[in-house]
């Protein structure tokens, strides 16, 4: 069928929603569907052919992060043209509760409309203020998907109505067979952190405090940190025990992200809140690195309440240090978690998840032609850039 995907955030900036839309598009194309994505983008020249840009976007603070979105008459006109030219069987908007292309598309499209809700919004004020505007869009949505229990609860509690739960996907193929960076993880133990490190809710300070405690008895312990942000923030707050033990990679490519996750003994997700899914946990599990995460509801769900990854008390550096210490000392437990983690991650492979999403499309657009038989599958474009 012909599917139009709407991504609200700037394509060039790495983010969970962008990655989701990208991977979904690739998976749908691989299944033989016709896909077009509309999104704001800074660098239009290097976009793959299935992506239509509405131009640059402006930074908007949203849910504790800075999101770059497009909203206005010019964007509205471009969205309407894309809808008209696309002649879609189904339009699938992402995060339609933000003032964005997704909201514009919801207003303009008359046809089967599917929406995916990614965020667990903690401060309902943002939503309540926009409620009347959002309601006009929400009424038009034929089927709703939530990527997590907490995203679904946000929807139920603040906007009314329910949603189907379909988790985020992970591309197992991209995370199989990756090699660690030379010299990593090494003999002394290595912990990893990935995320926008100046954002408080990502929890880097909790990890640094725990690592400082561990460093006292572990002379070889090292930290590998990757993610966008100002490195000086890390160096300034670095506990003296950790001087010379932290490797800062900055923002990494998808390939290096996989390698980075493979290069540590334990991947730590110390996030203190605002996470609705935790895709990076699945990515760490997909490369076979044991995960130690704060006991946020979303993380507990992905880790099967601690079966396929360990949990520590949210915000508790001492607990994190103790649990990380146990894992570093027990290679058998790490290997076991690696096996369980990879088996778990495979259930979230995009090939599995995309099939569930297509089933939703089929319920809202029953008349749409399925994939034409014998149609050649186009080569999946590589990379987001």
């Amino acid at each position, binding site marked *: 069928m012909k599917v139009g995907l709407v991504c609200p955030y700037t394509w060039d900036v790495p983010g969970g929603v962008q990655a989701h839309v990208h991977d979904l598009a690739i998976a749908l194309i691989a299944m033989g569907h016709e896909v077009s994505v509309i999104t704001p983008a800074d660098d239009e020249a290097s976009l793959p052919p299935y992506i239509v840009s509405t131009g640059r976007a402006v930074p908007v603070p949203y849910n504790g992060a800075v999101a770059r979105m497009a909203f206005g008459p010019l964007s509205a006109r471009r969205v309407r043209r894309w809808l008209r030219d696309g002649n879609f069987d189904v339009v699938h908007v992402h995060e339609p509760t933000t003032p964005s292309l997704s909201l514009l598309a919801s207003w303009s499209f008359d046809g089967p409309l599917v929406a995916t809700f990614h965020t667990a919004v903690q401060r309902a004020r943002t939503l309540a203020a926009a409620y009347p505007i959002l309601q006009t869009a929400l009424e038009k949505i034929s089927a709703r998907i939530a990527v997590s229990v907490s995203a679904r609860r946000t929807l139920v509690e603040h906007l009314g109505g329910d949603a189907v739960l379909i988790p985020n996907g992970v591309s197992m193929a991209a995370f199989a067979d990756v090699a660690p960076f030379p010299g990593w993880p090494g003999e002394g133990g290595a912990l990893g952190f990935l995320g926008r490190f100046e954002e408080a809710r990502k929890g880097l300070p909790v990890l640094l405090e725990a690592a400082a405690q561990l460093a006292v008895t572990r002379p070889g312990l090292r930290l590998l940190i990757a993610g966008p942000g100002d490195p000086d923030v890390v160096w300034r707050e670095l506990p003296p025990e950790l001087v010379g033990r932290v490797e800062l990679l900055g923002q990494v490519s998808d390939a290096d992200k996989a390698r980075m996750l493979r290069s540590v003994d334990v991947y730590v997700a110390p996030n203190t809140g605002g996470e609705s899914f935790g895709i990076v946990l699945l990515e760490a599990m997909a490369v*076979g690195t044991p995960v130690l995460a704060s006991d946020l509801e979303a993380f507990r769900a992905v880790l099967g309440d601690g079966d396929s990854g360990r949990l520590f008390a949210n915000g508790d550096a001492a607990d994190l240090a103790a649990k990380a210490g146990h894992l570093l000392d027990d*290679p*058998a437990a790490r*290997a*076991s978690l690696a*096996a*369980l*983690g990879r*088996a778990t991650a495979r259930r979230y492979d995009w090939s599995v998840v995309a099939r569930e999403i297509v089933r939703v499309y089929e319920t809202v657009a029953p008349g749409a032609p399925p994939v034409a038989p014998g149609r050649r599958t186009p080569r999946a474009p590589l990379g987001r850039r």
Partner: protein
Amino acid sequence: MTDPPVSRRERVLTMAFVAGSTVVRLVPESLTRPVFRLAADLVWRRHGPSVQQLERNLRRVVGPSMPDAALSALARKAMRSYARYWLEFFRLPGYGPDRIVGRMRFEGEENIVEPLANGRGVVLALPHSGNWDQAGAWLAKIGFPFTTVAERLRPAALFDRFVATREKVGMEVLPLTGGGRDTFATLLKRLRAGRLLCLVADRDIGDSGVEVSFFGEVATMPAGPASLALATGAALMPAYLWYSDDGGPGGTWCGWIKGEIMPPPTGDRRTKVAAMTQELADIFAAGIAEHPQDWHMLQPMWLADVRAAATAEPAGLKVGPE
């Protein structure tokens, strides 16, 4: 069970074996490694029937284009690899989890997790390569204890020692022969109970072999793994093991487990077993082709060689952990 009386030769062999393994266990590995390597080189240089057979086997793997000198060098590496297996077999009970788990690089072990978690048995089939005893210890240590079978050796005292070594690292070992129907029944029972079974499956040591095309030539492989999986509904998965030398003293152990080999949707039992065993052979061949020096195959396994060997003199007393 009534064992035939132990011959003098067997008694001497057992004593020599016990003495040797005790020495290997007590002397530091940094000293025994060069000795085993040297021994492997000496055996290779003598170029006896085993090494000649090894070369014939490897020739099928690498193809006719490899010059004889290169094949000979490969055989030398293979002999060193085999000697390394033996050295490690003796020292295995002394290796801690740090070594057994910490020096293992593995891909695909998650394949066995899902069936086992759902109460479905798994038959893991692998050729004689790398160090399967270490891999077994590793599997047991990371939470996947399993059952395996071993060819009954003469003398019995030696066999018991092999079994003891393996049970010490967490495997349940059943005798392939001598246990009679009991062994087979136990295997079925374990699989039906959703347990893991590991079988070394590149050499047909019984008479239940299935003919497969292996590196383009006919060989026989045991039907056991496919038959057991088919009879119990267990998942059949191939594995391969090899050595890598990039990880400091002693290097690392490596391996993979590939996804399930599905039974064909149609056909009778024999056709299905043949198809599954052929697929097993193809995946083994992929592993062997990638790491030929770690395939410990010093016996004839292709039909042409087996027939040639049968018309020649009978083989001497065989000692091996298979």
